[in-house]
């Protein structure tokens, strides 16, 4: 008997006291969640700064940008960026945003903080791995940032790092010598961190649910994090091998991706027979699931938050979860829709086009369920609920362009134009970030003990909402007009008339970006000066609202929670006269 209690205590929680153990190398999932959030916040502002630089250049290519020559004397002599440096900044923008923001914030940050609490656990299944996964990710970030400071700057091959450009080395252009190697190493490290994280999420969800927390009673965002972690596990397990092969091609002289007879800068490359398409297949086998890694957690967050402010249950709880699973499953069968113009057999194109259209079915059902859930509701308009509604709007706007791109015959025209840029910024970038914003306004009280300022929050919402439409809507038009993406200046006859549109977009981007400082200010100011939050300020049902604000070290202060209801008991009459029933409340919810 004695032995067991000792070994039990070994993995039981006692709060650490030293600063390093508490705030730096912490095993506490809540601290790790905040660390991920901080990293994503840093990354998103760097990524946004890069987009400002690119947009300034697109609008006014001849203007010198102050201080840019300090960042890279080669890339921007006297402050005007070279076309290659434009590509370097674009590569870093995409990479930082996709990996360090859209993967980290909605999934790793909020998931770490709230998954254990929502299922009634004291911590993640493997706290030590959890700490490692954050610090691995952080190291990946440092390696990626190092690419800014090497002589010829970051790589120019885009976030998709298409081979052979990404595989050959310095002869092909700037950034491809050291910068591209740093990129590949950073992404490989990132994969390891994400795999550790996904493993933890899966084991936690399967094994640490408290009594009564059946799968059917799990909140939607816990479901989304769970499905996402399964997707992430399989996707990053493919990107990692791809990066290893790329690193070998770059450093060890192998020829996985580099074809024979390639002549660059008048030099015959010493490689034979590799397949550039192999990289595209490996990358997009990861890449398409990755876009769902970015969006599913935000879908889950919106499904979680919207009923709280609609004071109505979400329609079709089972269908919602079913759609998430279906999306996760189908996301593995559609990667070829990124390769319609790669010279693939038209039959293969059809083979990828059909499942791509299938995947719009669960996506559409989810959207309709969300819309149906707010239909006729007496919405409580808060910053959080506004961002949820905004999410639905941008997700639809971006999803619709997907239908067009999914047709190979249309995509041949639209591929690699601004139409695609508009599509994925709406449906992935903005939608996922709106989920993060909603989550922030919603959970900030729980995470810090203080409320955020609602007036500033709403101002932030309206400026951002109008701003993203001003930025990305015109890009559809640009794409239809034939404006190719990844050009740094528009000098061809057919592109010159489009320059005013680009100027407009640049101004919108600068203003929308500026509005994000309202958010940053609100975040920092409220952290110290916001009004004190109560245990359950939004009158929500899930477990994170049944514990103190902010939660104690072991989440529930030594109590083992017992769950009696699903998360969806809104718009009911509870015994104490409220319109919701907590998941932990033993009273039986009346059938609604």
């Amino acid at each position, binding site marked *: 008997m004695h032995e067991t209690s000792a070994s039990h205590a070994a993995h039981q929680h006692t709060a650490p006291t030293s600063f390093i153990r508490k705030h730096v190398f912490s095993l506490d999932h809540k601290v790790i969640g905040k660390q991920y959030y901080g990293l994503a916040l840093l990354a998103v502002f760097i990524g946004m700064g890069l987009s400002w630089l690119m947009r300034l250049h697109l609008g006014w290519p001849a203007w010198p940008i102050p201080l840019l020559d300090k960042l890279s004397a080669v890339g921007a002599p006297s402050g005007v960026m070279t076309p290659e440096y434009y590509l370097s900044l674009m590569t870093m923008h995409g990479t930082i945003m996709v990996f360090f923001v859209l993967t980290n914030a909605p999934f790793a940050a909020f998931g770490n903080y709230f998954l254990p609490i929502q299922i009634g656990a004291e911590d993640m299944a493997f706290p030590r791995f959890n700490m490692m996964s954050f610090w691995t990710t952080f190291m990946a970030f440092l390696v990626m940032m190092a690419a800014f400071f090497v002589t010829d700057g970051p790589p120019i091959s885009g976030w998709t790092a298409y081979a052979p450009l990404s595989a050959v080395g310095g002869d092909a252009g700037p950034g491809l010598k050291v910068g591209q190697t740093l990129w590949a190493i950073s992404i490989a490290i990132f994969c390891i961190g994400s795999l550790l994280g996904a493993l933890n999420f899966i084991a936690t969800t399967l094994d*640490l649910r408290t009594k009564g927390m059946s799968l059917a009673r799990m909140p939607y965002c816990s479901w989304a994090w769970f499905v996402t972690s399964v997707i992430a596990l399989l996707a990053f397990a493919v990107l990692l091998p791809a990066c290893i092969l790329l690193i070998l091609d770059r450093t060890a002289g192998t020829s996985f991706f580099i074809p024979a007879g390639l002549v660059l800068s008048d030099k015959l490359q010493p490689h034979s027979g590799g397949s550039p398409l192999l990289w595209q297949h490996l990358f997009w086998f990861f890449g398409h699931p990755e876009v769902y890694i970015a969006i599913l957690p935000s879908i889950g967050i919106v499904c979680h938050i919207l009923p709280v402010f609609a004071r109505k249950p979400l329609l079709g709880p089972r269908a919602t979860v079913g759609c998430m699973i279906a999306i996760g499953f189908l996301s593995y069968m559609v990667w070829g829709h990124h390769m319609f113009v790669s010279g693939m057999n038209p039959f293969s194109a059809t083979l990828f086009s059909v499942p791509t259209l299938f995947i719009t079915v669960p996506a559409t059902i989810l959207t309709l369920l969300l819309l149906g859930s707010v239909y006729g509701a007496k919405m409580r308009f808060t910053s959080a609920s506004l961002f949820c509604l905004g999410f639905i709007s941008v997700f639809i706007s971006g999803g619709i362009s997907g239908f067009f791109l999914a047709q190979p015959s249309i995509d041949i025209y639209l591929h690699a134009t601004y139409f695609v840029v508009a599509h994925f910024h709406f449906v992935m970038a903005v939608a996922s970030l709106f989920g993060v914003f909603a989550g922030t306004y919603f959970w900030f009280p729980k995470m810090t003990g203080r409320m955020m300022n609602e007036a500033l929050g709403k101002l932030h919402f309206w400026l951002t909402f109008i701003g993203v439409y001003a930025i990305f809507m015109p890009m559809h038009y640009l794409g239809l007009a034939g404006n190719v993406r990844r050009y740094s200046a528009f000098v061809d006859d057919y592109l010159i008339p489009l320059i005013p549109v680009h100027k407009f977009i640049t101004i919108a981007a600068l203003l929308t970006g500026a509005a994000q400082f309202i958010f940053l200010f609100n975040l920092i100011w409220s952290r110290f000066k916001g009004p004190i939050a109560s245990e359950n300020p939004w009158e929500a049902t899930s477990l994170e609202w049944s514990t103190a604000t902010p939660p104690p070290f072991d989440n529930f202060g*030594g109590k083992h929670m017992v769950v009696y209801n699903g998360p969806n008991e809104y718009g009911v009459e509870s015994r104490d006269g409220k319109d919701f029933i907590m998941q932990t409340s033993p009273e039986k919810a009346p059938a609604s």
Partner: protein
Amino acid sequence: MATTTLPPGAEITLDDHGSGKPPERTPRQRQVTMPGSQAQKSETGMWVAVSAIGMSFAAFTSAMIVRQDASTDWQRFQLPHVLYLNTLILLASSVTLELSRQRIAAMPDAARHAAGSAKALLANGIYWLYLTAALGLIFVLGQLLAWRNLAAQGLFLATNPSSSFFYLFTALHAVHLLGGMGGLFYVLRKLVRSGGAGETSGLSAFSIYWHFMDLLWVYLLLLLAMRM
């Protein structure tokens, strides 16, 4: 069944993982704990880890098939014969691992009859574990021999895509195996410290990993034999 003293104010809950059904009594269930026993967590975690590793080797496999068909430069070569001997050694290590687990699993029963016989079982189990580690090490050394054999044929990492994949597969597998041996020593330490608590030492999770490494190697060998 183990019991623990509860901290004041704690509620007693049954570990039924929220299924709503009365808990079944499986050997790895605890009576009074926070949800999810250590052994169960580590086994789940190990299955997940093993699927990720399997997935990445599947990715390498498809890369190899695509690369071989992509052009005409694929050069076949004779696999070093020592690989087959290595395979036997690795398979033997799975057997020794199972022998060890049998000994340790029999301990609680034996302890009821005589404390001494449980001790002997533990010592025996640990002996088999050391043997497992030794066989693993011999396997890795054997793989090094295979590499030397290839180098003697003039085949290096970048010589030909076939040799690239050969080095890649064998090296990655060996790295995973060495990692597993690190895990094995961790398990051994815990076993000795706890006086043979098989449940908390991670032995069963470790054995999932080790057997998987075995299977993975057999698969890789077949793949290489077919393609080289």
